[in-house]
């Protein structure tokens, strides 16, 4: 599935809930299934500091794709990370770098990405894309090099 198809799948999934608390119940469940960052990477180097909650993110290149693992101290943040990872995980680096992540808007969770929330999530999305940019540049270099 492409990034866009995965986003569409999540939007449809969240469309099944008509109550906010049910949506959050689902997010919390997703948080529990997040592919956790290996303890050796759960350090300051991989830490994205938010004012409210903290995020650890690791990206592993697998051929021309990136595999993400992460963690957070807050379970709702973890659930949201899990959605991000589900959309971007093992996608081509170039697609990750240019992804338009509109699903968060479409399921009404945009406020979690606002700069005032400061939960680390906004910086995490930027970081995931940066990993994509770096990986894509590396591939360009080796294919032309």
């Amino acid at each position, binding site marked *: 599935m492409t990034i866009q198809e995965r986003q569409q799948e999540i939007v449809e999934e969240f469309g099944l809930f008509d109550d*906010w*608390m049910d949506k*959050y119940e689902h997010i*919390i469940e997703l948080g529990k299934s997040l592919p956790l960052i290996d303890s050796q990477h759960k350090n300051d180097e991989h830490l994205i500091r938010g*004012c*409210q*909650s903290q995020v650890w993110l690791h990206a592993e290149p697998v051929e021309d794709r990136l595999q993400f693992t992460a963690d957070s101290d*807050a379970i709702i*943040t973890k659930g949201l990370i899990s959605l991000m990872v589900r959309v971007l995980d093992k996608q081509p680096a170039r697609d990750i770098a240019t992804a338009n992540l509109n699903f968060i808007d479409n399921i009404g969770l945009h406020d979690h990405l606002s700069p005032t929330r400061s939960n680390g999530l906004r910086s995490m999305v930027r970081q995931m894309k940066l990993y994509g940019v770096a990986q894509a540049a590396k591939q360009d270099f080796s294919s032309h090099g």
Partner: protein
Amino acid sequence: MARAREDFPILTDSMNDQPLVFLDSAASSQKPRQVLDAIEHYYEHTHANVHRGVYDLSQRATETFEQARKTMATYVNAYDEHEIIWVRGCTEGINLVASSYGQRLQKGDEILVSHMEHHSNIVPWQMLCERSGAELRVIPVTDAGELNLEAYRELLNERTRIVSVVHVSNALGTINPVAEITRLAHGQDAVVLIDGAQAAPHQEVDVQSIGCDFYAFSGHKMCGPTGQGVLWGRRSILESMPPYHGGGEMIERVSFSGTTYNTVPFKFEAGTPNIAGAVGLGAAADYLASLGLPAIEAFETELLNYATKQMSSIDGLRVVGTAANKHSVLSFLVADTHPYDIGTLLDKQGVAVRTGHHCCQPLMEHYGIPGTVRASFAFYNNHEDVDRLVAATQRAVRMLR
């Protein structure tokens, strides 16, 4: 007191499709109709620049503005209204003292703050220490969230020039014994600044009986508009201090060969002031006085006790800050949950609380916690608000565990 709730239009609004339960007054209080009306009336009928015009309207604007200063002088029991300096808020009040009074500090001098200070009562002093070479020292806090007065006595010495301590902690609710703190500091000839941001909305403030030298507070936490606060200072000290900002209003005479400065308080009020802010804050002080600060304090104490008792019934809930004397703040953590998660789920149930470190990172570090959930109360809250908080927290905890 129960009727006072009806003075606040916003409290009939909803949040996330639920009737709003507003429990974040320690961050900023809501505004009663009386304050909104005073600001609107000022702009509709009285506005012109102050201390400038010869015409009637400007005179009336000046009188209204200066009347608000008198109101605030009465509110804190100042010796006279010239000791009331208009500032943007408590933060600016502290910065004014650190910048202006601070100019006389030098290497070897010491400044004392406590471990429970808001960042606004830490960073201006750190900046002053960088400029002057003075040293910042910290009064420790006990596990219950009270100041360790024994340690304070030991920290005080002849090098202590400034003691700056919070009257009521925004993160814990602790009421500090500011009169005693002041008396001890004066024994070493140190000047004392009290951060009154969380005290001024909840109790009678009497700067004469506290005996301090400066008292700073924000208007927006006491039903006034944002962007307007007060720095009260002892007149003899204010007169000895250099100006803070330069500009119009703060001068006596300007020439390129040299400028002389206006008298206190105008020396510290460069530029056109926030006139409507002052009018609104004056109206807020009048409003609180009409309800009666002792009545407000009694009502809020009962409410805090009720909330503490009800919330403590939640399994795994731990109150952070259990001082014997507290105002209106219930900071808590629930075992195996993160404050951000609780706050998010309370929001979706219409309950507004603050989560995080409350601009008190050193204090959170002291307790070894990432932050707390903070419910803070005002006289416009009631038992029903507390019951909604308890039910919403219980539901959140069930979901998170």
